[in-house]
């Protein structure tokens, strides 16, 4: 599968998003590379978001001094502790928020605790497309000896080294990377609280009622319940459209303050981006799933396509 031309890849390197990989040997190099980026952004009045674990955050604040007060620090777990598509959505929304006033923005990110290669490959590759037109510099730091370092080497159009960003000769077409490394199945959740089959769109209304009853049991508020119902409806609709007459399945797990729904169907998802952004000409079901759930994890396996969605009270 090849969705980008060489021309598009070249444009991607030089317009809108500047997606830089920073492969560092030690903390000193990490700080030496990131602090000037943050200060330069602050000087031009750009908002800066820094997503680090607490140890690095403290060291960065020490280096920045009073300038640190102007930076929005966020724990890495809040951004990266989710399924791969949700990570993409969280980052996209953060960037949209930062650039809303019309300025550019800078995001410094560091997520060495995330070692699932396929998960990281997904969001690092997809962000090149999703944020392509955003005026944002996204610097993703990773220890050079980390198991995820090879992914950073192929998913960033630019590499930061020696205080500057240079073209990355090892950068690979995101669409090809996605085709080679599709998201894998999450850990199984065990026996569901309830299960229903779906064969026809005439059953959607009853399945929405079924989902609503379980959402109420989980203690969700009305607004959250409505969002979940919409996402489940879109997943079921998509499953029916992919299934070509075969049955789909809805599994529900209810826990205090949380409901998880999983929709499975024999047809596979054909959108390599799995709905993380809205593409003209594509059905909007997967996009709506990503937008209206707290977390969403979509994947293909030999049984077909699966969408796991969670919503919290």
């Amino acid at each position, binding site marked *: 599968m090849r969705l980008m031309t060489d021309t598009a890849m070249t444009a991607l390197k030089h317009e809108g998003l500047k997606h830089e990989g920073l492969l560092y040997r030690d903390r000193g190099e990490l700080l030496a590379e990131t602090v000037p980026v943050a200060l330069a952004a602050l000087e031009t009045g750009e908002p800066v978001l820094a997503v680090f674990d607490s140890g690095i955050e403290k060291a960065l604040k020490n280096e920045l001094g009073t300038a640190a007060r102007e930076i929005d620090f966020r724990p890495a777990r809040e951004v990266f502790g989710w399924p791969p598509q949700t990570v993409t959505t969280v980052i996209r929304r953060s960037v949209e928020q930062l650039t809303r006033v019309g300025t550019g923005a800078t995001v410094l990110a560091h997520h060495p605790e995330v070692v699932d290669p396929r998960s990281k490959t997904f969001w690092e590759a997809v962000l090149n497309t999703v944020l392509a037109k955003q005026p944002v510099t996204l610097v993703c730091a990773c220890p050079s000896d980390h198991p995820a370092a090879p992914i950073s080497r192929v998913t960033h159009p630019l590499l930061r080294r020696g205080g500057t960003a240079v073209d990355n000769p090892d950068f690979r077409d995101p669409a090809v990377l996605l085709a080679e490394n599709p998201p894998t199945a999450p850990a199984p959740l065990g026996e569901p609280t309830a299960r229903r089959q779906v064969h*026809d769109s005439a059953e959607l*209304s009853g399945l929405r009622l079924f989902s609503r009853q379980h959402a109420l049991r989980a203690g969700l508020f009305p607004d959250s319940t*409505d969002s979940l119902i919409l996402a489940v409806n879109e997943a079921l*609709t998509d499953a029916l459209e992919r299934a070509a007459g075969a049955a789909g399945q809805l599994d529900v797990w209810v826990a205090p303050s949380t409901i998880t729904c999983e929709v499975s169907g024999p047809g596979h998802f054909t959108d390599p981006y799995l709905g993380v952004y809205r593409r003209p000409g594509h059905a909007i079901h997967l996009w709506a799933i990503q937008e209206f759930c707290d977390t969403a994890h979509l994947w293909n396996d030999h049984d077909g396509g699966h969408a796991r969605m969670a919503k919290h009270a």
Partner: protein
Amino acid sequence: MGTSDAGPAESIGSGAHALLVHADEQLRQGQVAGWLSRALTSGEKVLYKPAPTAVKVAFELSWVVGSGHVPGAAEACASGQLDIIDAGELFEFTGGMHSALLDYHVQLIEQAMDEGYPRVAMSAEALALHAMAPDAEELLELERGIDELTQRYPVYVLCQYGTSTADPRFMGQMVQLHYSDIIDAIWRVRWQDDRLHVWGELDASNRERFVMVLDSTLGEAGGGDLHLDLAALRFIDAEAAAVIADRAARMCEAAAIVLHSPPAILCQLLVTLGSSTGLRMR
């Protein structure tokens, strides 16, 4: 007996020319029983055409007249208030030509008025309609003629078509013709007080028909504002919301689709879609 909760039951089919779209027989019987009961209770003349085969007629009569679902139906049959018309005989009499069928209906209506009935209520089951006018073009012309009759006489009509039996193209034509009053399994739409009122749930099972109604209504609006009353809309899926946004974006510069009391989930969808062009909220 199943009934739809998509809309106020007391007014189902009381529009001049309504379409009942049914996916299952139980739902159809529930809707038609309610419609018949209200017409008989109001002292109106009722002309009803069941499916034309002997078995179907017997079945239809059994639940209309003999089941108790339509109180007073047996007495109304005996008194002549409820006329059960054989669609097969009607075809033999008219040759299935719409002009002859319309003439026949005019005679029945004028006869009922001469007998002192304040209004005439007419309904036909889908197979009866197809039996009266087997040619689809003749049936379409008959429907158009019936539409005109409702403007000339104190007549209201409930046409019944099943989603499983109707050809999709023909069903599309029927939806466009009856766009101002449609009763479907889980949704309903009706043009009233210069607004299109939408009840119930819009999803993949009915989205295509909703879009036809929306487009037909926009055509009638002639480039002016279109008011959608969505106070009783309980659910709308992402694609139906996107269609509303798309049609609003195509409106003339000064005109808009005005959404009255839209459900919160629709507002969220429109915000997430980034759609505001040509839309106004009230």
